[in-house]
């Protein structure tokens, strides 16, 4: 058994809303292996997004620890956490949140460029890497399009490419199929899975859709901020994935 890529232990997080204290996450513990595709299933407001934010270093837990690729994420400063995310974590959101003034290609290049030294050579390398990802995802022709000119499925594919551009160890996907119809959702997840497999990237995908979760190697269930593990390995045959 290899060392887990991600280890989170006893994570808790609560927010203050007005005068109410809301426990968004309570004593969550999980581990994800390198290259593993894990689904995190739960209803809206169950704590999925909070957990992903803590794992990606976007937020700090009240208690508990998060280690990704051997780094204690919760202990990092904002700047270090940003640099860490850039190198090790890719994010994928429900609304994708592509930057509206940048083309699909520029959106994909952005994390790579931010991670690079200045200069035309590194910019060219990022461009090449971004175009390769667009080709891999079958949307090369969209390189020069602005986000408003893309369909929901196309945006998600651009989002996947952007998440993969720095070849991260882990992709945190928050309801990436939430705004898509069933077929488009399935296509996006299979594309994500394929791309992650190609790059040996682990994926933790939050969803409320059981069918999407069914495509994962492993499913975690979250309810009212409490995480439950389902020890069933539901890895699908490769031929089935390519047929979707």
């Amino acid at each position: 058994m290899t060392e887990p890529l991600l280890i989170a232990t006893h994570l808790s997080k609560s927010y203050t809303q007005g005068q109410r204290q809301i426990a968004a996450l309570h004593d969550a513990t999980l581990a994800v292996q390198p290259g593993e595709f894990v689904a995190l299933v739960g209803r809206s407001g169950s704590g999925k997004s909070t957990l992903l934010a803590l794992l990606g270093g976007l937020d700090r837990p009240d208690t508990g620890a998060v280690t990704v690729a051997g780094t204690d994420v919760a202990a990092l400063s904002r700047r270090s956490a940003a640099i860490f995310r850039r190198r090790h974590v890719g994010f994928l959101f429900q609304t994708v949140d592509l930057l509206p003034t940048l083309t699909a290609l520029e959106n994909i290049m952005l994390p790579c460029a931010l991670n690079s030294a200045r200069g035309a050579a590194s910019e060219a390398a990022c461009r090449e890497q971004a175009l390769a990802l667009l080709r891999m995802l079958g949307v090369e022709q969209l390189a020069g399009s602005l986000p408003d000119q893309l369909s929901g499925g196309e945006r998600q594919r651009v989002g996947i490419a952007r998440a993969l551009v720095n070849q991260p160890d882990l992709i945190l996907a928050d309801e990436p199929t939430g705004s898509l119809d069933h077929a488009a959702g399935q296509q996006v997840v299979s594309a994500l899975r394929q791309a992650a497999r190609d790059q040996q990237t682990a994926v933790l995908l939050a969803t409320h859709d059981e069918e999407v979760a069914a495509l994962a190697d492993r499913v975690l269930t979250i309810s009212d901020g409490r995480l439950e593990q389902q020890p069933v390995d539901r890895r699908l045959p490769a031929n089935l994935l390519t047929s979707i």
Partner: protein
Amino acid sequence: MQYIWTYARAAVLRNGYRTLGMLLGTLLAIGLLSAVLFYVDASSAHMTQAAIAGTPVDMQVILQPGASAGASLSSLQQQLSTQLGVKAAAPFSLAGFTSSRLTGGKRATATTPGALIAVEPSYFSTFAYPQIVQGRFDPGGVLISKDMATNLGAQPGDAILLTFPAPAPPFTTTVTGIADLSGADLLFAPTDPQHRGMAFNPPANVAILDLHTFNTQLRDALLAAPTQPFLQQATFGAAAAATANGNSGGAVVSVVDTNEPPVSEQLHVRINRGALAGDPVQAQQQTEQLRRQLERLAPGQVRILNNLDETIGKVKEDVLWAKILLIFLAGPGILLAAYLSRYATANLIAAQRRELALLRARGATPRQVVAIITAISGIVALIGIVLGILLGLATNMLATGQTVLAAGNALLLARSAGLALVAGIVFALVAMLLPTRALYLTGVQAGRSQIVLESERPLWQRFYLDVACLAAGLIVLYITQQNRFTPVVGGEGNATLSLSLFTFLAPALIWLGAALLLLRFSAGLFKTSGGWISRLLGGLFGPAGTFAAQGMARRYAPLQQIALILILTVAFGVSLSGFAATYRQQQRVDAELTLGADVRVTPDRSTPQTAAFASSLRNTPGVVAATPFDLNVAYVGSELQDIFGVNVFSLRQTATLADSFFVDESADSVLSRLAATADGIVVSEETAHDYSIAAGDHINIRLQQANNGQFVTVPFQVVGVAREFPTAPKDSFLVVNQDFLHQQIGSDSVATFLVRAAGDPAQLAATLTSSLAAQLPAAKLQVESIDDVTAQLTSTLTTVSLEGLTRIEWVYALLIAALALTIFLTGLLAERRTEYATLSALGATPIQVNIFILCEAAVAGVTGIIAGTVVGLALSQVLVTILTAIFDPPPSSMLVPFTSIGLLLALVSVGLIVSALGIVFLLGRLRPAQVLHTA
């Protein structure tokens, strides 16, 4: 209807900052507009009051020939005094004498005909006129005018003999004082309507006698004189002064048979001037109404001459031009404020863009959407307008230190407040309608998109309206420069202006053209910011700078708007500063030319001073230089002119002597020649023209001897011709060497001393007054500064104060820039918080996220400051060309006020930096996880 209010209320609360932005935008726009309007009102009222302040008598009541016995002047005086609006009424009689002569064996001088005034002793306090400059008014003697004192060589205590037409006997009396009768022309003008408005020369020789003495000793005899225009001979023929002494050879200039009685018995009326309206037209109406009311007291028996009406009539045009000048100068600021109002309103509506598009997608009718927009922005605008008017009033009072809430200004204020209200509503409607129209033109789907892509070029760009305006402005400027507008000199040398609206057209067109051209260029600049700006920002800030520039190229409209506001703010501030500085400089030159220098010290005739007095003045702290400046009179042919005796060396250190003062030669060459030629003389351009004199000619001038008052002929050599000279703007004059003059007239006393101040002239005048009083307690000295001169000339356009207006415009320009920046940056933050959170999630460090927003602020700021300064200086130069028509001498070049322009740019830069740092602070508090979760 209820749902509209519910939605609007929720929208306003949801967008608290943008609502506040719109409120403040409207507040500033209307605040500036109303402050300017109130300033114009205050200036108008000030100019009107200043004009009438110089009018000695408001109304003259003339008893008509054949008036009934009941309509006696004394009973009428009682009636008039009790009338509402009348402050006082006093009797006044005017007759003429054929000559006056100094008696007592001292000298044998005499004068030509003159006027004899008879008043009660209380007249002087009632009308605060005429000013007694030496001695006092004693019922046992007479006051004489300054000119008569000069012509006779008379002093208080001297005996004089007045002669009258037969059968009136000669009258011997004692001079008890000397009075200054300047500004009294109206009192001597013909009283019959036919000749009232005619140009005439007021009498130089005037004696003022006690009314009781006049009535008991002279009145009846004078009334018995045959009806003849002797009074008019005196009045119209005064320029031919001193014929009686046999030296002048002058003739009566004009004799007009106006059928004036030998004794004109009048009542002089002082009205309650405080109740007069600030607006000259309204003030004229008020005085006319009062005149009619007074005439009704004795219908057909009296005729009332309304002197105030005539005075206000003369200043009316100046007031109108002052209004145009002030509004014109403030115009760009008002337009800038209106643009800010539109920007802030559009910002609030833009916040609703996607939401309103969603409502339309769900079936909301256009009328419902418009009703929602109107409800959201209409109420905010109305509150902003009302508060703006109050702010304008407060600003005006703070900036000018004066209250415009005087009773006489009520109508003006109401009119201006109404105008501001209407303008505010128009601003708000335009601000609401433009984005609403855009909302409809974009369609539902485009309305829901994340960014608004720029559509085709607007109509004005396609038709090159900007280029057309600039070209037209430059053509008009060329034409106005070719046809200089010449100031027309009115009575008593007061310049009234002949300007044309055409003059203001050039800068107005250039302003409009420049603003539109900037809009076109800024769009072009930002559209291409993916190019060289991207490389520049990439080089400075790395990949974040590159991507920020690429983003700007595709979403340039907000950047263009804020850059344009900054450009216009800076351009407006710079041009106003340049214009105001040049204007102030010319005001000072004008005042200095009138006074002679910064400060003038004039000894009383009773305590004359010699040139050595200048040395003691130079020893006073704050004095840079002082020079003795002699002022006498001399005859050139038959014409009496001022002759200045100067010390060239010290005069050049003390007074401003510009090259433009001299004809065809520099000041240096003419004055050097004068200093080198003992009997040298500089003649005025007018004299040179009238007598065909040129440099190198020898001329004979008749100078008055100090010991006997006789005029003797002295030869001089002409060394130059001058247009103007210190103390003599626009007059005929002669300039000679002081030592030579003193030798010729046999006196070393000096009429006045000019002083150059190291600092504030008014302060130096105060210092000199106190120090001279301590050093020379017996000497009577009058100390004046250029501030006093400016105060005396406030009814002319050249003395309109731009200080208050400049202060108002400056403060508002800075507030507008600060608010626009805040709206822009908070707008960026509100609109793009998801983008910044996404950047953070993608691994952009806080500094890299900041670079995205700071790049936009920097590009807008740098563009605004550079383009604004260039445009502002160019416009300032155009504005200064207007001054060439207003000031005489015209400004030689624009004065660039580096300090105030530097301060303006520094304040804009600081505002930019503070706003940007504020946004960086707010960005630091952004919680990306929460933003992305709620997006």
